[in-house]
């Protein structure tokens, strides 16, 4: 469509949607021939819509701006436990009916909680969009929270914690790393919560949490799929239009003080070979340096030819795997390296290699060919995450909720494409320094076979 025509069409839609109670805030091209838009209801509810006719399905996600960062000591894990309870009864649905109605369509649903957000996902055939809208609006306002279900879900979460932390080496190390790296900020505690807090959370805690954070002005709906735009806007307005906003309390603003010395902890487990997690204090995802840190993660361990993978796994055979990444958090996160060592290899041997690799980054020794290689990989990853409508919605929802604007997804792609060797040297010097580093390690306790 020619630009002038597109603008006119957009103006018509603005007029139309304003009549319906929606305001179109932003429209942006998406891929070759699509457009993603953000609307807002008077109540403050955001709606991001991407009409994608690739398949007769739709994903319907509700992102709440609440996560474990909004918890208090002694009440950790409430955001996640509450997420489980959202699948119980409402004033009009009996326990379990939510899941039955979704699964009967052939669709499925799930949810996730992390530090900065919680989101709920229903993926259904396009013809069942109204069902998803109705069910999600219902549980945003009419959830019934009973003691029996709290106790049952508490047990489920306790088992989930055993599965993901107590009996899982990576989960165990992840928890120890965050606990040691953060001393004040809520990123200190795990999203699933401390076991003793999970056991102690009360029904009144749960009620208060629901009343406080589950409101239209604290949420964004993300819809991606084969739907009609006007019909979708009409449905959302019909089912959410009467839900009142609530007063969202300001965050406590617990800023993490600068880390000025390396922190280390070591643990023993009945395992055959050691495992090491490193966490360097890193900028928040909205910071201009985040992209360069993400780039470094790819350069060090993002592919079989990446520097650390080749050195540690291929050439020196010190490790069986190396992973890296920078946490996509609203507040300063961690640049992480996770290394599974070969039996009999010491952490010192690996650290010498790690230091050498980081020193090389600081020197600016990143040839153009390597920059281009990483950029190509990042471009492939960018499109791969957007293959399915669920992935598209998750990417849009994450950036909208964490950074306040879904367009940050595309800006991040541009930033990554613009990273230079000088950027890499500068951020490596700023962030990848021992004084900002936390190291946790699990070593064999001797109970495993030699």
């Amino acid at each position, binding site marked *: 469509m020619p630009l002038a025509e597109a603008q006119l069409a957009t103006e018509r839609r603005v007029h139309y949607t304003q009549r319906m109670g929606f305001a179109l805030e932003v429209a942006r091209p998406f*891929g*070759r021939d699509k457009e993603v838009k953000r609307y807002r209801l008077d109540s403050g509810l955001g709606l991001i819509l991407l009409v*994608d006719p*690739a*398949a*007769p*399905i739709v994903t319907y996600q509700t992102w709440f701006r609440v996560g474990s960062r909004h918890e208090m000591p002694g009440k950790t894990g409430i955001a996640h436990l509450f997420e489980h309870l959202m699948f119980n009864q409402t004033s009009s649905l009996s326990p*379990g009916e939510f*899941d*039955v109605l979704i*699964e*009967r*369509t*052939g*669709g*499925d649903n799930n949810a996730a909680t992390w530090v900065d957000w919680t989101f709920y996902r229903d*993926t259904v*055939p396009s013809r069942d969009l109204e069902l998803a809208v109705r069910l999600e609006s219902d549980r945003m306002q009419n959830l019934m929270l009973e003691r029996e279900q709290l106790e049952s*879900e*508490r*047990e*489920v979460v*306790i*088992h989930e914690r*055993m*599965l993901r932390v107590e*009996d*899982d*080496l990576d989960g165990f190390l992840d928890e120890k790393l965050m606990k040691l790296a953060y001393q004040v900020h809520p990123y200190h505690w795990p999203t699933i919560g401390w076991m003793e807090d999970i056991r102690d959370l009360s029904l009144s805690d749960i009620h208060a949490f629901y009343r406080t954070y589950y409101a239209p002005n604290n949420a964004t709906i993300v819809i991606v799929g084969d739907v009609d735009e006007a019909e979708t806007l009409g449905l959302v307005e019909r089912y959410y239009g009467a839900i009142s906003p609530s007063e969202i309390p300001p965050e406590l603003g617990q800023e993490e003080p600068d880390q000025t010395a390396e922190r280390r902890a070591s643990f023993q*487990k*009945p*395992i*055959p*070979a050691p495992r090491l997690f490193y966490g360097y204090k890193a900028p928040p995802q909205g910071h201009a340096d985040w992209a360069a840190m993400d780039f470094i993660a790819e350069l060090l361990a993002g*592919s*079989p*030819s*990446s520097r650390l993978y*080749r050195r540690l*796994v*291929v050439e020196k*055979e010190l490790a*069986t*795997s190396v992973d890296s990444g920078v946490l996509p958090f609203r507040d300063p996160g961690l640049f992480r390296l996770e290394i*599974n060592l*070969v039996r009999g290899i010491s952490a010192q041997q690996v650290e010498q290699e790690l230091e050498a690799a980081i020193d090389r980054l600081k020197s600016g020794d990143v040839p153009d060919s390597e920059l*281009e*290689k990483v*950029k*190509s*990989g*990042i*471009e*492939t990853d960018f*499109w*791969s995450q*957007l*293959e*399915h409508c669920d992935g598209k919605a998750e990417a849009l929802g994450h950036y909208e909720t964490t950074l306040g604007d879904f367009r940050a997804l595309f800006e991040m792609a541009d930033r990554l494409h613009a990273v230079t060797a000088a950027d890499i040297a500068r951020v490596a010097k700023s962030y990848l320094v021992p004084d900002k580093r936390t190291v946790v390690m699990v070593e064999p306790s001797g109970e*495993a076979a030699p």
Partner: protein
Amino acid sequence: MDGPKGSRVIVEPAGDTPLVWITVTALGGAAADPPGKEGMMRHMAELARRGTRERDRNAIEDAVDRLGASLDVGAQRDSVSFSATVLGRHVDELITLLADILAGAAMREQEHEKLLRETRNSLDDVRDDDSLLATRYFDRSCVPGHPYGRTARGTETSLTALDVEEIRDAFRAQCAPQNLIIGFGGDIDSDRGLALAERLVAGLPAAPAPPLPDIEPPPAPKKRRIYVVDKPERTQTQITLGHLGPRYGTDDAVALTAVETAFGGTFTSRLMQEIRVRRGWSYGASCRLYRARGPHWFRISLAPAAEVTADALELTLSLYEDLAAEGLREDELAFAKSYLEGSIPFVLATPRQRLSVAVSNQIFGLPGDYIHIEAEKLAKLDLDQTHAALSRWAAPDRACIVLVATADSMVPRLEARGFGPIEVVPYDAY
């Protein structure tokens, strides 16, 4: 469609993103590993990407990464596959590289030895993962001697028996064009797919496909067996129990697909409701009928806390015994049919998914539109048919039960409930 030199070519176009997915699949798979040489097909596939006559390992990895591509190799039960994701503008270069690997894999002795060390080290990562451990021991114990029970990764002993000359011969045989399914999905059309397939097999000599491995299972054990895979300091227990199931594509498999859905394939299934929702005993509880060219497992999995493991196992077996005796209820069958009919668009939503389904159908020897044939059969399925299939296959009294747990505390708990005899195996013994 027919491809060059007797290969088969599948193209699933969709210009939604600038990506192209490529798969080159050789029929056979880990089921073709010679007894005592488990891990050979996986080793062969990985070794192939570690050097050709033209390029060494680093040169191949550099070339793949320079294109921003990913290249994964692997051995599944019935096939060996090379799978790539690449930006459309780089697809030609990736095909050149893949063609070089297929026709010119060098399989140097030095890389062979290095890969053996890496695979042995990777066994430690498996031992750190209770879920993988449960699967590994279940596969070994469910129907001893079944080709699908062999570990695709290999064991310390079987890896030692691998011979690089034998592997080179196997790779040449596997790469006979008539044995290959070449698939493209994404930003590509059929003509271009065919042209790229021509280039892919240009360097391969025309040769007949090797015979497919015999995947007929030996007779299944006639009684229940319980194994505790002993691992220290477990707070919960990974439980895997099951037995042989029908071959995918048979009417019994269609019937058991509905059973799988209603009994343990969805959140609202019996297992999930009884184990997780009503009692909170495990984060998940599910069952699955494994899809393969031959008869594979029907398996139930859950992970209860150590202190409720005996209760959870007792209840799971009781639920399964009820299912075997009584079958599904009318409402459960109706639900399963509705779910499975509605779920088809989700399985076929993207070109990569459509390609995966199409390749699987080829591997399993099924028609290209089998997903729709299966849907028609499911729509006509009745309770009598599901009961009949259950009576032929459901065997709770002959199930193989594997528990990854700390034996000192777990075995007395199980024995106190009448479970036995129990065989304890060290977690790092296999």
